[in-house]
Every structure is written in structure tokens, then in C-alpha cells.
């Protein structure tokens, strides 16, 4: 669209665009630009677009340079790094170790070492070279392994014994309950001595010979005697 007022052309408007957007135009020139823009859709659109572009560009973050660029420049200008920053190069490989995952890993390794060393009988409070002798380590490890195995076996047999007792006591308890008539009042159904710990004691007393036999079956120990 051609300019229609004040003989102000589109080209002239374009030429004033930067200062118009900067707000540095003289008042009279600004008024002429605005008068032209009010009657020229093309210039109005251009000013809106360029204004938005300038605002967007101002907000655009800089792109990140490659991580080693500064180091490469320093090496190209100063040569291989020396002096104060030399120790950083030597210990640079330690930097990744400061990450949390390495800390967790280190703690995990320490716990593992602690457990293993305890199992091997190593006394950290009073360390002795003899503790690290292969024969001693093997002996302690063997003993610990046997103890763990023995404890495991005992636990399993204890559990089986408990299970055996429960299965032997259960039928008697169930039989007693089924023989009780529904007509009985709750007070009559639970006579004194027929429930609770006393009842269990009575049952164990009653079944003692059988339980003793079961116990001997799981723990066939030699009978202790003073003889």
C-alpha cells in the first residue's frame, strides 16, 4: 500500500525503524512515522514483526561453547599447562569421584569389606599381621562357615520341632471344640483351665511322651548324664 499522508514513504519509514524502535526519534519525525503506519498496513506489519524480533533476539540465550574450547585455546597460546594449574591436571581424574554415585559406591564397598573382614576374624582395633596369614584366614573362614551352617541347621530343626508340636496339639484342641455342644453358653463353653496358657500346659503335660520322642527325633543328642 502506498503512503497516503504527509508525503512520508515506506522507504523513509523503514530508514527510521531502528531509531523508532529505540525511542530516540524526534517527536515530529515520530509523529510522521506513526501517521504513515496508521494508514499503511504493510509498514504496520513490518514494525510489529521487527519489534517482536528484536525483543526475541534480546531474550535469546547464548549457545554453549564446546567444553574444552578454553583449555584448547590456552594450550595453543601458552603451550602445555604448567605452574599453579599443574596439580589440577594431575588430580583432574579425581573430579568425577566427587559425584554422589561414587560416594554411595564407596560406602557400599566399605560395608562389604567390613562384613567380610568380620567374618574372617580380622580385628581392626588391634590389627595383627598374623590375621592376614592365609592359613589363619582359611581357618577362621572355615570355622565361621561351619558355625553359620550349624546355626542354619539348628534353626531349621527348631522350626520343624515347633511345627511338629503345633500339629500334635492342634487335633486335640479341635476335637475338644467340636465335641462342645452349641447349646452351651459361652461361659460354659470355656470352662476354667480349658483355654489360654493353662490349657496349653495341660496339653503339653498330657502329650509329653510323644513330644519328647519328637524332640529326640530332631535333636538326637547324646543323653547327658553325670555318670
Amino acid at each position, binding site marked *: 500500500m502506498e503512503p497516503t499522508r504527509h508525503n512520508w514513504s515506506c522507504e523513509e519509514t523503514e530508514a527510521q525503524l531502528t531509531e523508532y524502535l529505540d525511542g530516540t526519534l524526534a517527536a515530529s519525525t515520530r509523529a510522521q512515522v506513526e501517521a504513515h503506519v496508521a494508514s499503511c498496513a504493510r509498514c504496520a506489519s513490518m514494525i510489529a*514483526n521487527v519489534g517482536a524480533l*528484536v*525483543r*526475541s533476539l534480546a531474550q535469546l*540465550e547464548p549457545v554453549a561453547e564446546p567444553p574444552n574450547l578454553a583449555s584448547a*585455546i590456552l594450550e595453543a*597460546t601458552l603451550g602445555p599447562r604448567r605452574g599453579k594449574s599443574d596439580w589440577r591436571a594431575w588430580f583432574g581424574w579425581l573430579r568425577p569421584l566427587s559425584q554422589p554415585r561414587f560416594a554411595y559406591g564407596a560406602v557400599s564397598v566399605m560395608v562389604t569389606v567390613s562384613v567380610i573382614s568380620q567374618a574372617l576374624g580380622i580385628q581392626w582395633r588391634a590389627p595383627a599381621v598374623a590375621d592376614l596369614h592365609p592359613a589363619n584366614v582359611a581357618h577362621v573362614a572355615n570355622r565361621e562357615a561351619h558355625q553359620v551352617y550349624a546355626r542354619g541347621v539348628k534353626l531349621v530343626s527348631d522350626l520343624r520341632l515347633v511345627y511338629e508340636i503345633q500339629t500334635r496339639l492342634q487335633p486335640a484342641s479341635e476335637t475338644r471344640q467340636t465335641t462342645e455342644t452349641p447349646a452351651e453358653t459361652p461361659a460354659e463353653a470355656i470352662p476354667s483351665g480349658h483355654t489360654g496358657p493353662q490349657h496349653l500346659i495341660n496339653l503339653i503335660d498330657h502329650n509329653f511322651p510323644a513330644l519328647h520322642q519328637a524332640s529326640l527325633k530332631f535333636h538326637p543328642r547324646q543323653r547327658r548324664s553325670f555318670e
Partner: protein
Amino acid sequence: MEPDPQLVQHCLQGDGLAWEKLVRLHTRRIYNICYRFTGHRHEAEDLTQEAFLRIYGGLSKFQPEQGALTTWMTSVTRNLLIDHHRRTKRDRITDSMEDAPQVETKRAPGRLPDQIALDSELSDQVQRALAKVSPELREAVILRDLQGFEYSEIQKVLGVPEGTVKSRINRGRIELAKRLEEMGLRPA
């Protein structure tokens, strides 16, 4: 912060730490000028290194009374870019954005991921559009709108009158806006 002339003086006296400080302070800015001008990450990386080699070799030519160190360094970089442009005879850089670097997000840690993605997309599109703008208009827009230079500084860097600077910025912006519109993007 140490004033630039003092920092340069220390560099000229062989103070490696002063030079390291200067390099770390300006690497990103110089890299961004090179990247926005060439549109290629690897080219920008090489050019940034070369620019610093020139700066290092020419530090004694820096005259504080004629302008800030930033302006002088940008001027050295711009001359290098012109040489590179002439050497490669490339009026229009390719619009391939395969190696577009990530937009830096550290400066705005509170921004939402969506906003970061939008910024990154805008950055790529601006780069594509810049590639279609003539080099002399492109450099004017880069210095003004992406580097935030004052007109007087751009005048020193480009070595042209202020009127010419404003005219190039004007035409560069209009051209860039048109290219972005052709790409279906209208900055909000």
C-alpha cells in the same frame, strides 16, 4: 573485577593466569559471534581458537584510549570472519542445522523445560534465517541484537559511519523478520 587495560598489561608481562582469566571471560562471546556468523559449530570452534591466537599475538596493539577491550577483540574476530568468508567464498551458508549447539540454560535455571525447548527451537530458526541474510547485514544484527553492542562500538568494529551502522541494522532486521516469516515463524 580487574580493569581490562590492567589485565592486558599483566598478559603482556607474561602472566599466564591473567591470560587464562581473559580467555575464560571472553570465549563464549567470541564463540557465539563465530557461530552466529558461520552457522557451523566446528567452524566456529576453529575460528574462535584462531581469533584468540590473533588476539594473543596482537595484544600489544590494543589501545585502551581507542575503545574497550571487548570492542577490540570483536574487531579482531570480525576481521578474521571476513578473511574466512572471502577464503571460503560462501555468500550463503547452508541451512543445515545438524550440528546446532545447545542453547545455554545455566543462566536461567528456573525456566521450565517447555520454555527451554522453545528457546532452543527459536535459536535454531534464527540461525537458519540469519544464514539467508547477506554477511554485512548479518554481522550488524549479530553485534546489535545478539551481542548487545552500542552503535558507537559497532561503528568501531565495522569501521563505518554510525548512519551506515543503523542502516545495516535496519535492513538486517527487516530481512531477518521476512526470512523468519517465510519459515512460518513470527516472533511473539
